Structures are given as structure tokens and as C-alpha cells.
């Protein structure tokens, strides 16, 4: 369905794409993090791809599986062309940052805040990068694979004789 969009991307930004695959409609391109903003702007404005909607931003922690450790994932959808494309950008553990796409897609303001909240990836140029789901005093980023699974951060102490986990 979205082979057209993937081919168009490979044609125009072949040097920015590290790897790509397309199985049963999951067209995916892994692009260099430093070229991401450029690629996203192209995909949105190009008449062939015309990805008007950034339907999701998320991330994957590949701790112990792959280097660099994180991948930020962008799901794009074209309302006019009814086609989808997934863009991934690798981000290192030492310096987990990537340029924001909030200037291209307004919806990214909340989506990038969620990724920052749960994975600790910083989006450079984001207008208001703070936690969105968890409370401000929360420490760490719980969807990272090295977050202690039984670790709790209650805001109020437990009643006498009880304890939080």
C-alpha cells in the first residue's frame, strides 16, 4: 500500500536511509538521526508521499540486542493518499537526543513529551519538554529496560502497618 512512499523516500534520500524493509505492508525506513527532520519535512510536503498526519511517536529500548540502544519510531499516515510509512531513527545511550518535529507536526508536542517521559530521550527544540503522564517528582524513565521492575515511587506514604509493594 505504501511502497510508493518508501520508494519515493529511497529515491530522494537514499544517503540518509540506513536500512529499509517492506513485508506485508509494514514499509519501514531507518534513517540517520541527524537527517530526520529533513526527511520528515520532505515526506510531509512532497506531493507523492503527502504524509499529513503523524499518528504516533514512540521508542524502542534495544538494550543488549542492538547498538545504538534506542530507536525513536515515527508512524506517518497520508489522509489524501491513504498510505502509511514508518520511520525509525537510532539514538545512542550516551547522548539520547534527536531533533524535534514539533515545527512540522503540532501533534508531536504531546507525543514527544510522552517519549521523553517514559524513555528519557530529549527532543532538541521542543517548546515544552517535560513529563506528561508521570508526576514531576518521578525519577528515571520506567520503560527503559534497566528500570528496576519492582521499584515504586509513591507520592504519599503507606498507612501504618502497610507498605507500597
Amino acid at each position, binding site marked *: 500500500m505504501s511502497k510508493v512512499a518508501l520508494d519515493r523516500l529511497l529515491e530522494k534520500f537514499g544517503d540518509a536511509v540506513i536500512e529499509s524493509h517492506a513485508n506485508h505492508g509494514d514499509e519501514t525506513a531507518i534513517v540517520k538521526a541527524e537527517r530526520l527532520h529533513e526527511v520528515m519535512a520532505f515526506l510531509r510536503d512532497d506531493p507523492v508521499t503527502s504524509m499529513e498526519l503523524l499518528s504516533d511517536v514512540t521508542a524502542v529500548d534495544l538494550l543488549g540486542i542492538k547498538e545504538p540502544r534506542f530507536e525513536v519510531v515515527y508512524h506517518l499516515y497520508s489522509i489524501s493518499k491513504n498510505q502509511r510509512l514508518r520511520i525509525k531513527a537510532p539514538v545512542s545511550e550516551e547522548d539520547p537526543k534527536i531533533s524535534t518535529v514539533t515545527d512540522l507536526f503540532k501533534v508531536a508536542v504531546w507525543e514527544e513529551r510522552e517519549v521523553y517521559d517514559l524513555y528519557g530521550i530529549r527532543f532538541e527544540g521542543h517548546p515544552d519538554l517535560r513529563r506528561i503522564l*508521570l508526576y514531576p517528582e518521578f525519577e528515571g524513565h520506567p520503560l527503559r529496560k534497566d*528500570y528496576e521492575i519492582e521499584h515504586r515511587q509513591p*507520592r504519599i506514604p*503507606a*498507612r501504618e502497618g502497610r*507498605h*507500597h509493594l
Partner: protein
Amino acid sequence: MTNQNDHLMGAEAHLTTVDAAEGFFRKLLNKNETVQNVVNWSRKWSFFQYPFVTACCGMEYMATAGPRYDYSRFGCELPRFSPRQADLLMVVGTITHKQAPVLRTVWEQMADPKWVISFGVCASSGGFYRNYATVQGIDTIIPVDVYIPGCPPRPEAVLDALMMLQDKVQKERRPLLPVVNS
């Protein structure tokens, strides 16, 4: 002219309000109950609940409130959306650590006597949310009177819990009036 009720009227003129009320309840129950029992009886049939609904259990709560299961048969048909006006806190759904201070505050705002029902496994124990975000049972924050298991519980289970709470309230022994400076 004599009336067969004259002696009663004369007697009632000397009754205090409390005595009159007690007499009324005794007649109503047709038993020789103590005042405590009568007060408990009136409390257990007029719960004013505060539904603290946070999750999907709310649908089952609404089903229980509806005409098919109809919990107004147990005297608690009127939800109050201010904790000041409520004496039964129903915690319906998952409570997160982010929300825990809010629940605690709502409970503290309720006037005594007050009771708490934990509705569903998430409120009772955290359910399958054994993770960083979820309170592992609201009894870590506030005292709970009745726990309802189920994900979500059947309306019958909710009615069963209400009847259990009624039994508990009927057996309660707490001061009838607040005692000041003692």
C-alpha cells in the same frame, strides 16, 4: 369527654426529642432494640455514596445502578458528587500513584461515620497492573471495609458487598454523639 389516647398524649408532652425518636424507631421495628441498633439500622439503609470511578469497572457500577440490578433497593441510590455529603466511598477502578494523594484527600474530606468499598481487583490489589504506575491495593492508602473481587465484578457481587457492608454497619458500636474535650 374522654379519649382512649388521652394518656398517651399526656405522656408524649414530657418526652424529649430523642425519646420520641427512639419510641418511633421501636414501634417501626416492632422489636425491643437499643438506640445504637436503631441508628445503625437507619445508617445502613441510607448510604450516600461517592463514586470514585477511574476505569472500566465504572460500566459495571452503572449496570448495578440501573433498573435491572437496582441498588436503590439497598438504600444507596443517590450518588453525591461532593465527599462532604457522602458516607460511602466506592473506589471503582485502578488507582495510580499519581492519583493516590487525590483519593486520600477525598477520603479525608468525608465526614464520619464513613465506609469504603474497594470495587474490582485493581482497586483491591492492583490487579494485573503490577508495575511502576499502579497502587498495589488502595488499603495501602485508606482503610477498606469491603473488597469486591472480579475484573470487573458482576453486579451480583456488588450487591453482595453492599449487603455485607450493611451487616457490618448493623454490628458497629461507635459513639452516637461526638464527645467534646474528653
